[in-house]
């Protein structure tokens, strides 16, 4: 509070959108560096994997030559800059396993993951908004307690177990959902449910809190006192008031959905980025893992950026806080 505000900080506050874009780019640079550093922690390097993935056990001499060729003997920073240069040209390297460009592999799988995440997000919204609002409006009543109890258990269910249970009870025992085929609505049902249920449970709780906060405000009490019907207050005031935290939640859910997709896609054999990375881990296909992490971070960052901009439009008072600042709360379910 008593800290002096630098011109920089003032600029930061005034040009919110521009400043967000600049910090977005800075973080992006950091993300690329961190991704690179993490990949360099791998126990075997690119030269070695290049041969091993082709079933060749290279001699130390050959290995050394290849390392030289691939520039793996240079200092880490030089390697990073080189890698970044390629990255900016859209070259994420080649998959060890398929010899296919990583970028191509990612672009091929991304739509599948987005479809899954999008559907799960929609279902989450459809479930958690009405239930959260219901719980807030019926605070302390049986329905509220029930919703809270169920959602509490829901956030504690590991998603991979839920996937197995759904598969066992819905697909095996009841034969409700088909398992074959991809890209078709029917085969999405189980993975979408698996992703959406725990997330909904977590959001019901937070949406309830958001509504309760809004209902504790003076204007609500005033409107009530004036005898305005409850549903009208709900739709014309409460909903818009609680919208900002809900949008933030939505932005954050991108992270949970993308992360959850890795396990869920693996279980249901969904050909998206998640099952791709698990397969890549299995065969130690580092460029693919690297590309995956990078993309996920970029998508997540973009989601954050959009969320910020939307929140800023909804409620200009929020602007100085920013997405990452507000985001100290629990990050999703997992």
């Amino acid at each position, binding site marked *: *509070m*008593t*800290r002096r505000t630098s011109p920089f900080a003032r600029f930061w506050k005034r040009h919110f959108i521009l400043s967000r874009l600049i*910090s977005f780019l*800075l*973080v*992006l640079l*950091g*993300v690329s*560096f*961190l991704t690179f550093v*993490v*990949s360099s*922690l*791998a*126990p075997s390097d690119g030269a070695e994997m290049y041969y091993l993935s082709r079933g060749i056990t290279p001699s130390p001499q050959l290995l050394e030559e290849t390392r030289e060729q691939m520039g793996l003997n240079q200092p880490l920073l030089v390697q990073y800059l080189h890698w970044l240069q390629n990255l900016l040209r859209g070259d994420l390297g080649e998959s060890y396993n398929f010899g296919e460009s990583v970028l191509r592999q990612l672009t091929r799988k991304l739509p599948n993951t987005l479809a899954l995440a999008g559907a799960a997000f929609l279902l989450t919204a459809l479930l958690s908004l009405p239930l959260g609002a219901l719980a807030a409006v019926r605070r302390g009543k049986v329905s509220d307690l029930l919703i809270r109890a169920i959602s*509490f*258990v829901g*956030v*504690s*269910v*590991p*998603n*991979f*177990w839920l996937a*197995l*249970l759904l*598969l*066992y009870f819905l697909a*095996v025992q009841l034969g409700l959902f088909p398992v074959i085929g991809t890209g078709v609505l029917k085969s999405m049902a189980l993975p979408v449910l698996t992703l959406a249920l725990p997330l909904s449970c977590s959001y019901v709780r937070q949406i309830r*809190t958001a509504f309760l906060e809004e209902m504790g405000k003076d204007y609500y009490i005033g409107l009530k006192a004036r005898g305005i019907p409850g549903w009208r207050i709900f739709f014309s005031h409460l909903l818009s008031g609680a919208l900002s935290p809900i949008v933030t939640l939505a932005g954050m859910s991108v*992270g*949970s959905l*993308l*992360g*959850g997709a*890795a*396990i869920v896609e*693996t*279980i249901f054999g969904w050909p998206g980025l998640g099952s791709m*990375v*698990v397969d*890549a*881990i*299995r065969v*130690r296909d580092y460029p693919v*893992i690297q590309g*995956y*992490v990078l993309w*996920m*971070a970029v998508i*997540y*960052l973009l989601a*954050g950026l959009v969320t910020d901009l939307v929140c800023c439009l909804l409620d200009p008072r929020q602007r100085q806080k920013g997405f990452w600042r507000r*985001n*100290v709360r*629990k*990050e999703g*379910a*997992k």
Partner: protein
Amino acid sequence: MTAKGLTGKRLRFILLAVLAGGLVLLAVLGPYIAPQDPLLGDASASLQPPSWEHLCGTDKLGRDVFSRILAGAGSSFSLTFLMVLLAALIGTAVGLMAGCCGGFTDSLLSRVTDVFLAFPSSVFAIAVAGILGAGVLNTVFALGLVWWTRYARLTRAAAMQLRERDFIWQARFGGAGEGRILLRYILPEVVPQVVTTISLDIGNMMMSLAGLSFLGLAAQPPAPEWGYMLYESRTYMQTAPWMMLFPGLALLITVIVFNLLGDSVRDMLDPSCR
């Protein structure tokens, strides 16, 4: 009203703490009270359904699932605690440093934290664990690397608020050095918040760990680990559903107890939250 609420909260806390303590005790004693050897199987008793002899049935190698759940609790618990403590320690240290030093240090550390926050946590954990390779320690490292940021944010914010407070200024005028102020005055103020977050995190951590195990990234056979047991159960979903049901149930119950405990700790220590 307040007095009653307080005792209610306290009672709830004590009850849950006892429950959680019981689970921890079970985990510690697990290997000793397991009715059968969790590692040695009897191949002739492969995939037996639950019975009095095998409370939760047996797995493919004829090992007693109940004994394996008990034996697996130990590693699940100790690893989870280790990871949460590691994350809390790193995060708190970074956060305090950023919050107290301010200026360039703060900017730098905050940017670094931002970068880490830019990765969806489970995505990052999977990738790090995947790149480092399967292994318990690698998983601890991966999850620790992901989870420290929230502690850093939390303590940084708290420290920044605190350092301008009157009692800190008094101490400063009294000649206390920054280091002393940090340890003596600021740290104790931050601890309750950190403890709250730790207690809220345990359940999540346990699930994340099991998730990585499920992907084959943490535990290694024949070690009984809940996530890995669930992975193994997948092939036998129809022929031996008990292999899938019981380890999951154990995980669910544990996570629920620790989540409830976390809520209760928050209510006790940090009433401002709600």
